């Protein structure tokens, strides 16, 4: 199998980036806390915090630190709830967010020290989830008038907000002192005392009243009051007309549109909510696909049966129509399942930017990554297998292609080297990925000298580069080690995925590797086993049971029963024919067999004896189409990682052959 992506490749980049984000998150939180203390909302700090957490979550997901993902996710949810309710984090929620960010920081530190990050602290997720209800819905400030808004202190604003949100009306009263009022004893002092009995005075502001020509006419007082008293009572208190009593509208909740947008390097918007998403284990989708395959097989049987009826002269038009309709529906279902397996190429390629960061830091190169993924999508299984190849190519580009800064400047190139990874869907359900750099290009003459063979064109160049262990470098670098690993790149792209690999290099200008891989592949979980000197695999789904062959207890072949080498074995009260796979495949006499694989065909079990089991793994099955090697029971071939083909057996078909012979 493919060597899995070594996570250590990304850890360096992850630690740097996550530490920066934790710092940013803490700064936002301090801002938010200050806001709570002052009663002034800090929506921007909230959004910054959200963005930092969202990015941390994504990065942690890539390097597989589940506890960080969970904490960041819970906090994100909390922040979203705060944002939606038009408020800001309450004290409780802010404290929890602080603890959460602290916990994330601890885990990032554990990762950087090479240790295993601790699980989520007990109760933290629950506490964060519960905190949602404690969010103060006070932050969005009510608006009275621009002048007054500016004069309200944070605590006054908070006082007003709380009252309004709680349902107590707010009022703006305008008291104009006059001789007549004074004569009646209605002074500002008296008004104030009167209003205090009716409600709470938030603010009292004197202002000058100006006339038409700007002439100063006198003084007036604006009073902000929260009171449940009727408007008329308030008017009476200020000895003025009701027009001088204006209701303050409650604050409008912050519109949902302020949901922060997170952009990736390619400028593509990754919506934190977007459409609802369910995370599904890949194995479950495989299961779905396996079931679909069975459906397709049973549909073929249906077709055969219909054909048989038609031959007997029966009217099968209705049946045909129904089965044709079913065929179309199965195709649609297949397409829908494939779609469910698709992931955005941008998500797959994101780790590369982490890689570039840590590579650039550990070398004297200045380099940036340009990702161009548009809307391309590919099968998760393809993506997982492809990533190691891309890692190799990007690492090679940083190590061997991009020149050191001084050299680039001397050559009149931009100081910053560029590695571009572009992908797009092309005809034939293929994804084309181009990994290009603006580095020094590959010196064909040098490659030819080292390989001691002519390298006339890019095709020949690729051949040499992909020779195992070939390197144009004498010194092993820390990042690339010795050798370019191009043999691995080709093995993944071509042998494993059945795709294509090309190279185009212009000395002095750069190199571009083009990989074409299928958007989807058939991944099958198989048992590997040995039979004689040869190993085989068989799909796990085809095997009902595996058991140890007893030394005794095998009933000798009956006369007139299955032809040798089948014998019968008692298994759970049933006699199962045991066929020696070694003998059946003419490999050996089967006497070394110690295990038996049981398959069931049309309700009848058959056991195939094999020497020993080698393990269970996921493989990509490739068909072998040449008529020279088309034989019954051979379903295809796969590569178990040794570069040699291993045959995939169809034991059901072998079982059928055995049965037919027995009849």
């Amino acid at each position, binding site marked *: 199998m493919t060597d899995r992506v070594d996570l250590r490749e990304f850890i360096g980049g992850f630690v740097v980036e996550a530490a920066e984000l934790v710092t940013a998150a803490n700064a936002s939180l301090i801002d938010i806390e200050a806001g709570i203390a002052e009663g002034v909302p800090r929506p921007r700090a909230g959004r910054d915090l959200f963005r930092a957490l969202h990015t941390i979550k994504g990065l942690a997901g890539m390097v597989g630190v589940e506890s960080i993902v969970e904490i960041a996710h819970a906090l994100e949810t909390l922040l979203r709830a705060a944002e939606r309710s038009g408020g800001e984090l309450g004290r409780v929620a802010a404290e929890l967010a602080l603890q959460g960010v602290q916990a994330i920081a601890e885990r990032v530190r554990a990762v950087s020290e090479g240790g295993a990050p601790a699980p989520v602290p007990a109760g933290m997720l629950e506490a964060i989830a519960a905190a949602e209800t404690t969010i103060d819905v006070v932050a969005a400030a009510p608006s009275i008038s621009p002048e007054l808004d500016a004069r309200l202190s944070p605590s006054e604003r908070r006082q007003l907000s709380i009252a309004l949100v709680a349902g107590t009306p707010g009022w703006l009263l305008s008291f104009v002192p006059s001789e007549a009022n004074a004569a009646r004893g209605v002074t500002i002092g008296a008004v104030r005392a009167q209003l205090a009995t009716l409600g709470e005075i938030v603010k009292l502001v004197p202002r000058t009243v100006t006339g038409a020509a700007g002439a100063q006419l006198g003084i007036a007082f604006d009073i902000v009051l929260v009171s449940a008293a009727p408007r008329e009572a308030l008017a009476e208190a200020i000895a003025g007309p009701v027009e001088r009593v204006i209701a303050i509208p409650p604050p409008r909740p912050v519109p949902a549109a302020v949901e922060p947008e997170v952009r990736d390097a390619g400028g593509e918007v990754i919506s934190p909510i977007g459409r609802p998403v369910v995370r599904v284990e890949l194995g479950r989708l495989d299961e779905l696909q396996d079931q679909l395959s069975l459906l397709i097989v049973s549909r073929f049987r249906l077709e055969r049966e219909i054909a048989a009826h038609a031959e007997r002269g029966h009217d099968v038009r209705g049946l045909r129509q129904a089965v044709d309709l079913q065929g179309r529906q199965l195709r649609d279902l297949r397409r829908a399942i494939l779609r469910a397996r698709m992931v955005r190429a941008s998500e797959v390629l994101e780790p590369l930017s982490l890689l570039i960061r840590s590579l650039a830091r550990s070398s004297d190169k200045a380099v940036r990554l340009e990702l161009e993924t548009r809307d391309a999508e590919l099968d998760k299984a393809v993506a997982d297998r492809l990533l190691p190849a891309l890692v190799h190519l990007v690492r090679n580009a940083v190590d061997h292609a991009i020149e050191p800064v001084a050299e680039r400047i001397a050559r009149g190139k931009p100081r910053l080297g560029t590695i571009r990874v572009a992908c797009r869907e092309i005809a034939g359900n293929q994804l084309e990925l181009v990994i290009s750099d603006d580095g020094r290009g590959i010196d064909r003459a040098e490659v030819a000298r080292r390989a001691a063979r002519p390298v006339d064109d890019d095709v020949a160049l690729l*051949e040499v580069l992909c020779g195992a262990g070939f390197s144009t470098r004498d010194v092993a670098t820390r990042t690339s080690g010795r050798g370019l690993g191009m043999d691995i790149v*080709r093995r993944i792209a*071509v042998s494993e995925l059945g795709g294509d690999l090309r190279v185009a290099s212009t000395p002095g200008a750069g190199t571009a590797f083009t990989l074409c891989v299928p958007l989807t592949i058939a991944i099958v979980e198989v048992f590997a086993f040995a039979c004689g000197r040869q190993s085989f695999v068989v799909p796990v789904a085809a095997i009902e049971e595996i058991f140890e062959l007893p030394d005794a207890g095998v009933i000798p072949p009956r006369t007139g029963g299955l032809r040798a080498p089948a014998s019968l074995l008692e298994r759970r009260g049933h006699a199962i024919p045991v066929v020696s796979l070694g003998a059946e495949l003419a490999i050996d006499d089967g006497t070394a067999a110690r295990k038996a694989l049981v398959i069931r065909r049309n309700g009848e079990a058959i056991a195939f004896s094999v020497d020993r089991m080698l393990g269970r793994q996921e493989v990509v099955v490739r068909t072998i189409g*040449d008529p*020279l090697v088309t034989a019954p029971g051979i379903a295809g071939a796969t590569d178990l990682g040794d570069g040699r083909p291993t045959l995939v057996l169809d034991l059901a078909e072998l079982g059928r052959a055995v049965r037919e012979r027995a009849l």
Partner: protein
Amino acid sequence: MTVALHVTFRVGNASYALPASDVLHLESYDEATHVPGAPAYVAGIVQVRGRLIPVVDLRVRFGLPPVEPTIDRRVVVVQLGSRVAGLIVDSAREVVKIDHAAFEKPPEIIARETAGFVKAVAMIARRMYLLVDVPRVLGEELSHG
């Protein structure tokens, strides 16, 4: 123009030739994955430059006795229409130019001994080259049957 490049190789004591235009490349040969149920002359499948191809053991195909494998053994990868297959040979020699006119009908004895897998012979520099009938060697009848 009737002079064409030919890839030449040895199987047993004879030298064989194939038009270079039918040959994709030469590979060293180690071992093939045996395919149970395939014809006896099929050594199995190998992975060549990412491709899975069947390989035919020309010694077996030509009815020659097996020999101890040497490091000179090669796989001549040939293309026949859309099919790609390998021919295991004892050693692959140089590429020579052979004028089409130099090829003659094989003598009766050679035709018989090679079971019809040689469609022509040519004498070049006092050496006889046998032109292999690739479709026949690859059991072309199989793909139509």
